[in-house]
């Protein structure tokens, strides 16, 4: 090689990395860029800070620092703070209603079972198939434990209540409305006009009516349609109403998922000899469901909150028990504590479910 030509080659040495200027990176940079970028935003930030300064300390002082936690008698003297002793006192009735004391272990065991399945779900400890199996086989043993029969003493359903009832209505509601919703969604896309019309009719009828109305109808009108001698109790009627209501919405969610699957999937499946039904079940539906899991979890949250409406047909769910406990003549004047506790419990449960939905959304890649 020619040495003169070799000398002309410059060697590139990358510069060392320098730290970014302080006012654009790190926490100070973040605050500048997000809270004080421009006059309007700065003003809003300051207003928000003032508002928080006014409310948060007062709230904390009421809820925590000046609150009474134990004995009931001490509450009346210190009315500046919250009286959580009220919640402690009423805790049992809020959780399980007037479920008889000697059998309290039964709701506890049920809750343990539910919590186990929830933990398996949250931490993805078992396969999706096993999870589905666990969830769908859950209601039966839970019903047996709570209701009794087959060796266990019977506990009448009029004694069920509180958070237990809310959760039961919601869990059973979702689990049953999922297959029903799938059927309705498939029916709505069916090539058979009668099936299609029927599905559309059911979905639109239910979606066009408020849940309260459906609950009233289930509780008051359903008995009129039933043949003489058939007697279903109020709780079951309400549960059916909740399932119907939920399945109409789930059907629409699933229909959205089905529409997102390109027609080529169905064509490829039937071209290999699968029947239309097999192709739907093995190829189209699994993909559609995977797309809509986050929305279905959203429906779970909505349904759990909606079950609080059963109070109007005389069932005392969590909210119902909260309301009832504030009427106790020995414990008058604790509405604030009761409803704050109620909101907190609802919020913790719903927020956790939402976060779980978000985490699934992120991991939803094939």
């Amino acid at each position: 090689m020619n040495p003169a030509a070799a000398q002309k080659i410059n060697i590139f040495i990358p510069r060392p990395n320098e730290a970014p200027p302080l006012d654009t990176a790190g926490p100070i940079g973040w605050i500048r860029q997000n809270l004080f970028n421009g006059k309007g935003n700065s003003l809003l930030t300051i207003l928000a800070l003032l508002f928080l300064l006014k409310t948060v300390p007062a709230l904390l002082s009421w809820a925590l620092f000046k609150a009474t936690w134990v004995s009931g008698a001490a509450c009346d003297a210190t009315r500046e703070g919250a009286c959580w002793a009220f919640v402690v006192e009423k805790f049992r009735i809020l959780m399980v209603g007037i479920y008889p004391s000697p059998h309290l272990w039964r709701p506890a065991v049920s809750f343990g079972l539910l919590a186990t399945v929830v933990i398996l779900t949250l931490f993805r400890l078992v396969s999706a198939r096993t999870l589905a199996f666990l969830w769908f086989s859950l209601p039966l043993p839970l019903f047996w434990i709570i209701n009794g029969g087959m060796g266990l003493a019977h506990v009448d359903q009029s004694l069920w209540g509180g958070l237990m009832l809310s959760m039961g209505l919601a869990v059973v509601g979702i689990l049953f409305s999922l297959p029903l919703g799938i059927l309705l969604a498939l029916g709505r896309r069916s090539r058979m006009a009668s099936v299609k019309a029927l599905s559309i009719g059911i979905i639109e009828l239910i979606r066009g009516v408020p849940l309260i109305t459906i609950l009233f109808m289930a509780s008051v009108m359903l008995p009129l349609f039933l043949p003489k001698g058939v007697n279903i109790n109020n709780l079951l009627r309400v549960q059916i109403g909740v399932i119907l209501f939920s399945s109409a919405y789930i059907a629409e969610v699933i229909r959205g998922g089905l529409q997102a699957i390109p027609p080529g999937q169905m064509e490829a499946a039937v071209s290999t000899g699968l029947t239309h039904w097999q192709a739907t079940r093995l190829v189209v539906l699994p993909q559609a469901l995977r797309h809509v899991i986050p929305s279905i979890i959203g429906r779970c949250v909505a349904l759990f909150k909606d079950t609080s409406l059963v109070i109007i047909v005389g069932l005392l769910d969590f909210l119902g028990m909260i309301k009832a406990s504030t009427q106790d003549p020995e414990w008058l004047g604790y509405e604030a504590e009761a409803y704050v506790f109620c909101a907190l419990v609802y919020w913790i449960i719903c927020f956790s479910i939402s976060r779980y939905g978000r985490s699934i959304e992120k991991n939803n890649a094939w």
Partner: protein
Amino acid sequence: MNQDIVIDITDLNKWYGHFHVLKHINLKVQKGERIVICGPSGSGKSTLIRCINRLEEHQQGSIVVEGTELTTNLKNINDIRKNVGMVFQGFNLFPHLTILENLTLAPTWVRQLPEEKAKKMAMEFLARVHIDSQAHKFPGQLSGGQQQRAAIARALCMNPRIMLFDEPTSALDPEMIKEVLDVMTELAEEGMTMICVTHEMGFARTVADRVIFMDAGEIIEEAPPEDFFTHPTFDRTQLFLNQIRTQSI
């Protein structure tokens, strides 16, 4: 001679609403014959081959596949589909299943093959299209050429006697086209009856027994490749061939 005709299309007509998409199509395909269909976009090529396995319904005329006529009888349709494989332009692999599961799905559900047997057979077909190392990946993790070869293997797993290809290479990058065409050529050499919609004229020249040119829903020209490419009898065919040649240069 007549017994060897596996696809017999007589005076086939199809409409989309008022749009006459297939006009008086007559086509007889013999066992082991390789047919290439070409023609401008919108001429009805896809529609024609999709009628053969009833992905599209026709309104007039008859299609008889291996002695069974395609009517509204669902069982007949299904029996024909079991023996007629199809490969699509967009691969249409099932994204929620691994490549191996894509291949074993139909054999286990339609042919009721035990899972182990189906897997073994699927692996053999994957080896034949040279992607057995990808068996446990999902379709989204494969290149386009690999996906299309997996799709061919998926169709082959049902041991079809006829294969339909609808522009199998037109969604692929140039360097991947060859690997797919090679697989198809091997298949042709083994004596598979094939109908292939494609604009790969090199493939048509070397593999096809007959080239069919369609335009505006009609079969205009039908000839062995040498005749078709050297002296087409219609001006329309000539024009199309010129266009194809200028594109590929």
